[in-house]
């Protein structure tokens, strides 16, 4: 069971919602659609489901063209951001509903419903009505409804957004485990880079209706094809600093210099934009190569046991992602250490020309 999108576009009222997407999903794969709000994640899922028809292009399942086949004649499931269950049916009947519509025998329905409910740990609530359950259990019910039938494609449209942090982590882990044993294609839309990383599998980065990059999640994370992908796929977004490469050294904004190291030596002299992940900049040097940079604190954003430190020097802004709680006051002068061997370099048109080695991926 494979799902292939060939040059798929969707135009609504003259506005391009999906722009020429080519995507091929393998049987048994877990695929994350990563993109901000309005990047086209839901629209793309609706096309995959057959809820909408693409304006151009072709959708193939197992090599068969299903572009014009309506959702009723496809075998898919979908889980939504909202907890969608039939309000006046018990949890049992909710989970059983797709099977009943498929005219399955009662004993088979019963077996499957109980098995799926057990898997999602809602087997003790089968007689309840959905509204008597907590949000997490309601969403588990909706997931059970999606998983109970043998769908070829299961679509998750930001299913964990409306749940609290703890439940989200728990369900995310279970979800991944549930799919290990299955041979269907799972597609999971999210706005959060960290969620994509936690789910692993493959990631497709969407931006303004365009598919920027698709590949193994770690590969996409470590070797983003261009600067937008790199910005989309890191939280906080990757720091971008304009710079110049000469025969012997790298200059940031005419002011900060360092010797061209072995990593960056293959770069042609010229203008580049350098990316550095927020977690790679430190308050103490990690190696002799690290560039000391005097900066001024704008804001220390403390989130749980992590701190996002926003700083600037006269020429550019930086964000540091530090573990632990660090308190600084505004305009405090500090020194940060810039890892010169962990730099991404993008050329003037934004394409990746150098990625730091030894970070994983390929």
């Amino acid at each position, binding site marked *: 069971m494979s799902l292939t999108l060939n040059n798929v576009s969707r135009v609504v009222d003259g506005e391009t919602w999906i722009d020429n997407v080519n995507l091929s999903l393998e049987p048994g794969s877990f695929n994350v659609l990563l993109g901000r709000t309005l990047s086209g994640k839901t629209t793309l899922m609706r096309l995959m489901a057959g809820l909408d028809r693409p304006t151009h292009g072709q959708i193939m399942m197992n090599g068969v063209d299903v572009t014009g086949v309506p959702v009723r004649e496809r075998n898919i499931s979908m889980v939504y951001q909202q907890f969608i269950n039939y309000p006046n049916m018990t949890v049992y009947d909710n989970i059983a509903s797709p099977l009943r*519509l498929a005219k399955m025998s009662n004993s088979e329905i019963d077996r499957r419903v109980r098995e799926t409910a057990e898997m999602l740990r809602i087997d003790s609530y089968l007689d309840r009505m959905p509204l008597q359950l907590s949000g997490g259990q309601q969403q588990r019910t909706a997931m059970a409804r999606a998983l109970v039938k043998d769908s070829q494609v299961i679509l998750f449209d930001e299913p964990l957004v409306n749940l609290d942090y703890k439940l989200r982590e728990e369900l995310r882990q279970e979800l991944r485990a549930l799919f290990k044993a299955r041979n269907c294609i799972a597609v999971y839309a999210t706005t959060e880079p960290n969620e994509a990383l936690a789910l692993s599998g493959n990631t497709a980065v969407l931006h303004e209706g365009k598919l920027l990059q698709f590949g193994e999640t770690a590969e996409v994370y470590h070797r983003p094809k261009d600067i937008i992908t790199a910005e989309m796929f890191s939280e906080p977004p990757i720091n971008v600093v304009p710079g110049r490469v000469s025969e012997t050294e790298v200059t940031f904004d005419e002011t900060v210099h360092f010797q061209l190291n072995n990593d960056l030596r293959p770069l042609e002299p010229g203008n580049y934009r350098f990316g550095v992940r927020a977690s790679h900049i430190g308050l103490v040097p990690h190696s002799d190569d690290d560039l000391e940079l005097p900066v001024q604190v704008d804001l220390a954003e403390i989130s749980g046991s992590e701190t996002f430190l926003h700083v600037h020097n006269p020429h550019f802004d930086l964000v540091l992602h530090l573990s632990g709680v660090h308190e600084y006051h505004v305009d405090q002068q500090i020194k940060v250490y810039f890892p010169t061997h962990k730099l991404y370099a993008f050329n003037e048109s934004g394409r990746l020309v150098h990625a730091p080695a030894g970070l994983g991926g390929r």
Partner: protein
Amino acid sequence: MTKVENNKAWWLVLPVFLIVAFSAIIPLMTVVNYSVQDIFDPYTRYFVGTEWFKQVMTDSRLHDALIRQFIYSFTILAIEIPLGIAVALMMPTKGRGASLALILVAIPLLIPWNVVGTIWQIFGRADIGLFGAMMAELGINYNYASEPMHAWLTVVLMDVWHWTPLVALLCYSGLRAIPEVYYQAARIDKASRWAVFRYIQLPKLTNVLIIGVLLRFMDSFMIYTEPFVLTGGGPGTSTTFLSQSLVQQAIGQFDLGPAAAFSLVYFLIILLVCWVFYTTIMNMQKDK
């Protein structure tokens, strides 16, 4: 430790007591006052206890009116609720058509009761009314002024025309409140149109339907103006509902004592039916 009593808060509640007293309790007590006394003038009054109530309870004219009233109310509920739901389901949901449909559906609601009666009085006449003329064309000897059944049906039809839009608008708002994803999910489940209605739309409409049924029941149970204008309660007593009987008694015959007793019984009937209906629905929902 002694408890410090501070009764100043009562002053804050006082306005509510005053408003409720003037809006409900004092008028109602006046009626109670009349229902247990025989009053000739402010200085001549006799306490009669439950005599008026006994008289009212055994009055066969009132029994007939009560039965007529129940048949009428349940008939219009049986027509207006399903029809209102059907209209709401058929109304367009977006674009210019939606606003247009809303306005068109709402028009009957904007017409005052006595005007509605007048409209149908003219509309139904065979000589000058479209409806009457149409029935005559169809070969039906339709005459609401002389045929009791025709008169009754006309009042029903008039009420359906006047009030189905209310049910339709309530249901329409209820339907709009259902997120689009429910319908999507149903399509993915391959659910039929009927299943969508039965398992998504109807359950989500329960709350507005409770309001709709209660409003329509109370209103239709108190119907007065339209039959008064259209038929004056006739021919015979075929469209004499409870309110007509009450007015005939209170103003026509000036039997204020029995009329007051009757008012209270009338009030209690409405209260009782609404309560029974409401608790039944609530229990049904709880059982599920």
